[in-house]
């Protein structure tokens, strides 16, 4: 029903919905899950890697985690090519702000300006919306650590814990149960990995299916660290989510 209203992105349906935006969100529902948790001393972002073929060149670049600026990074769910464009836009916007004001861009302003770009594609131009949702984690001196979730419509919200991508409803409800306001960064890492393991299809988690990144303060500067596969494996073993590799004699 109301199929006639689907093809134009910039038109409302009679029920007052924007179909293209909703279809974009459908596309994201097929992508790998990403979870973000805000803790009192940092932000934790975890992502499930969908493409895990042995043939894939594992270079240093990441599939789901990206650095936007020294103090802000993001996790992606959805169409990767759309994500790359938006990440580039976000990076340039952050640098332009720093050039003009000589200080790092506040996280909310960065999210807002990126969402304004996304919104533009739902209102004019006749182009389809971006099929990406983001989880932004960052720090600024006004509000400390923050986590924001944004979707193809250009809506964004600040969250204490959020999930995007496949099974995000299930992940979100699990997070609601287990999240405590004064959670530390270590506990947040464990919680994120536990929730992700329950929502993922595969039986056990291995470090090559995941990406974990943390944003925290170290010596007064914001650090963004993506865990290496080795440290990730050790972490998974210590939480008890993977069987330790059999000893090679």
């Amino acid at each position, binding site marked *: 029903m109301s199929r006639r209203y689907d093809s134009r992105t910039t038109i409302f349906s009679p029920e007052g919905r924007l179909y293209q935006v909703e279809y974009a969100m459908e596309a994201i529902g097929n992508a790998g899950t990403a979870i973000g948790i805000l803790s009192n001393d940092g932000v934790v972002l975890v992502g499930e890697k969908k493409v895990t073929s042995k043939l894939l060149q594992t270079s*240093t*670049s990441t599939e789901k985690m990206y*650095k*936007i*600026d020294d103090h802000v990074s993001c996790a992606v769910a959805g169409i990767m090519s759309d994500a790359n464009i938006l990440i*580039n836009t976000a*990076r*340039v916007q952050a*640098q*332009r702000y*720093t*050039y003009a004001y*000589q200080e790092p861009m506040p996280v909310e302003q960065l999210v807002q300006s990126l969402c304004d770009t996304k919104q533009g594609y739902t209102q004019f131009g006749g182009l389809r919306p971006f099929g990406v949702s983001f989880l932004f984690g960052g720090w600024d001196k006004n509000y400390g650590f923050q986590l924001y979730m944004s979707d193809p419509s250009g809506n964004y919200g600040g969250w204490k814990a959020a999930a995007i991508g496949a099974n995000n409803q299930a992940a979100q409800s699990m997070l609601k149960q287990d999240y405590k306001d004064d959670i530390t960064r270590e506990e947040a890492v464990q919680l994120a990995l536990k929730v992700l393991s329950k929502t993922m299809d595969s039986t056990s988690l291995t470090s090559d299916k995941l990406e974990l990144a943390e944003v925290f303060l170290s010596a007064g500067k914001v650090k963004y660290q993506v865990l290496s596969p080795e440290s990730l494996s050790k972490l998974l073993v210590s939480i008890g989510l993977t069987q330790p590799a059999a000893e090679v004699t």
Partner: protein
Amino acid sequence: IFEYNGSALVAMVGKNCFAIASDRRLGVQLQTIATDFQRIYKIHDKLFIGLAGLATDAQTLYQKLVFRHKLYQLREERDMKPQTFASLVSALLYEKRFGPFFCQPVIAGLGDEDKPFICTMDSIGAKELAKDFVVAGTASESLYGACEAMFKPDMEAEELFETISQALLSSVDRDCLSGWGGHVYVVTPTEVTERILKGRMD
């Protein structure tokens, strides 16, 4: 216009290391208004740029370079090589060919395999690559003479520091628009040493 604020910059190549030094005076023609002005900026651990000439243009040019370099770092996930950076600076300066930045940059860095690289350029981007030393600023003529006399190839970090400091201090003494001490960075593959020199405080 190049002699409005006063400046002295020199960079020298040593054995697997380099040193870059500047004076610290900021003046408005004959009046000194600051004695701790920073002319040398760090782009990344193995790349430094010093900007001589008009102070406002130097600051703006530096901010533009930070903008470009940060985006490069995010996109390429690595630091810029000094040779690439020099080309970037040259291109930026030439963009303003008919309304230039009144700056003379001095670029010094460790490139592939930690090979030292220095270069300078004029205010519209003409690169001058040198193997031994480069100079810029109002004191450049005395600096040329001092460096030519004192420079030896393949100096170690400590000796390089002494040489560049002596060359800088003696040259700025002959130039009324630069002086008030010196700021020297000596960079080796493992560490960066920053030292402040006390000279004739005038």
